[in-house]
């Protein structure tokens, strides 16, 4: 059974067709990359999966570990093991980084039937994980994403991913706004979490990120459908010839 199964997903926004029958199977231990030009529906796909209000499916189905997500709210999906790393992480003025992480982690632990971590145990765990992502203590004391640089925001996203231990992570344009050094730190963080039990879906414009997070499969999304799937070599083809050649051929 696939860990994430998207079946014939259709979605409209403002009466405009955005997703026109996306289907995708992601198995445990796999990394999939979804590439596509601007406006192909990539971010819509990630919001749809995460359960954002207004991004409900018109038709089709999504299953996470065999369970349908359609009837679940965003928070329930997250607690069930779906994680979305945002392209533009949202600033939360006044919400401290540490208490935000704790709220998130304990929501997931409660759902899994695990004991909630007390303050001390949590701080210890958070610091350990944070140091791996080069996230300084001082950053955890600040309000979530407020005044963070582009790199800090993305590192904080991946820190959340590492603490929440999701089954499936969707990384939406995680490379945007990152310089080479930051890209390496973030990619190392993602790679360190790859294991046989989870799966990662990387959504990106550029092949660049895929040099660091090497996918098992690459899919090209255009006009709300996957027009071609292949191995990592497909990303190189995009890099060389652009999307237009592939889209025209399809």
């Amino acid at each position: 059974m696939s860990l994430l199964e998207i079946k014939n997903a259709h979605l409209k926004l403002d009466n405009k067709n955005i997703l026109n029958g996306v289907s995708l199977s992601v198995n445990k231990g796999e990394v999939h990359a979804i590439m596509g030009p601007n406006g192909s529906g990539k971010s819509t796909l990630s919001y749809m999966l995460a359960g954002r209000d207004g991004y409900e499916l018109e038709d089709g189905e999504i299953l996470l570990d065999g369970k349908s997500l359609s009837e679940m709210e965003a928070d329930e999906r997250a607690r069930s093991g779906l994680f979305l790393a945002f392209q533009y992480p949202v600033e939360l003025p006044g919400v401290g980084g540490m208490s935000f992480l704790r709220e998130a982690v304990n929501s997931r632990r409660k759902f899994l039937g695990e004991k909630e971590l007390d303050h001390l145990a949590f701080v210890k765990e958070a610091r350990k994980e944070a140091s791996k992502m080069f996230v300084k203590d001082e950053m955890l004391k600040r309000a979530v994403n407020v005044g963070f640089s582009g790199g800090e925001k993305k590192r904080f996203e991946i820190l959340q991913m590492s603490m929440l231990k999701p089954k499936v992570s969707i990384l939406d344009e995680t490379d945007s706004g990152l310089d080479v050094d930051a890209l390496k730190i973030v990619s190392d963080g993602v790679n360190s979490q790859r294991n046989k039990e989870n799966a990662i879906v990387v959504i990106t414009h550029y092949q660049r990120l895929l040099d660091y997070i090497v996918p098992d499969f690459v899919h090209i999304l255009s006009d709300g459908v996957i027009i071609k799937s292949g191995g990592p070599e497909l990303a190189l083809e995009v890099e060389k010839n652009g999307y237009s050649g592939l889209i025209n051929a399809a």
Partner: protein
Amino acid sequence: MQHSLKDDYANCVKNYTNQFKDNSFRKLACNDFKSWPGPREETWRLSRLGTLSRKKIKPITPNLQKTINGKSKHIGSKIIKFVDGAYRGDLSSEMPLGVNLSSLNDSESLEYLQKLKKSNLNHHPSTNVSLSCTPSIMKLTVKKNIKVKDFFEIIYEGGEESQSVHPVLYVELEENSSLYLIERFNHFSTLAMPLQLTEIRNKASLNSIKIFNDNKETYNLSAHCVHLSEESNLNSFSLIKGGMFTRSETHAYLNGCGSKLSLNGIYISGNNQHHDLTTAIYHDVPDCISKQIVRGVLGGKSTGVFQGKVRVAQDAQRTDGQQMSRAILISENANANAKPELEIYADDVICAHGATVGELDDDQLFYLNSRGVPMDKAREILIKAFLEDMINQSVDNSLHDFVFKEAELALSSIIIKETL
């Protein structure tokens, strides 16, 4: 009928002043109070006193033996108490060296009245009624060069149903002095009309926190006039949470070059409460700074009003005036009104203002939801953060927890009731 009742209170006030001998300041003040301001008066249009004017109220005769068993513990190390609007030395702390607290004599009181009459609070009902009916005007003076380390806490309490209380205070910070003042309004009367004049002399600095937490039936019409001299500083924060109807009106005059003012406030309103933060900031000389952040959270059928005027006189070049107000409605039946006003007559100024009324931010809610935090909890987190963020900026670190808890108490009662 309504008219005669309105006159009724004016008559009570008049009768009250008759009992005093030749206290001319009371008579003068009394002459200027004919009736409650009506809805046609622009500054009262959003906060109408129709219900108040139909109530039968008379000015209280303070009971000087009365004690109140307050539940909340003191946060200041020096306490000043007003019960029924009267200063109570027996319940207050002794003043430290360099600080003086005494009542004004008749000629000083007349001077006090004249100062208020020159301000734009001259027609405010609390100016006229409280000066007519106050037991005495109390003056708190911090002497030149004295930096007071203790937190001063003024507690206003007492009052009775169908009666009005009239504490009147004069705070003067002499040159190069400083003070941290916390004022808590915990009245039980139907009407409270606190009046205050504050003068901050050259290079003096006042930190002020006001917490309005009167009884749930109380109308509080607080009026406060502030003068800032050269290079002086006022950092003021108000939390309005109690009462049936609370209007805190402050007029701040920056009339010394290089003075700085921060006039922040939060209102948390639920049920049928009406909360109003009205301010006017007058930049009359060059090189002054005023900053203002106002935030409101409204549930139930409550109403919030923010009226903020900033006037920059022609000579007040290089003024920096910033004003931002934001209200969050957490109930469909709550209402928020914001009326920012900028009047600028100088050319070289930086002035900005913004006012928004809305719901919680969808992106922020979704971000929390996407981390597994349920909607109710996400709302609570964002509302608390919305206020805490500002409390952090406005109050001393050591008072942060106290002020935040006061806000949290009010929030919890309105958040629980909302099931949006």
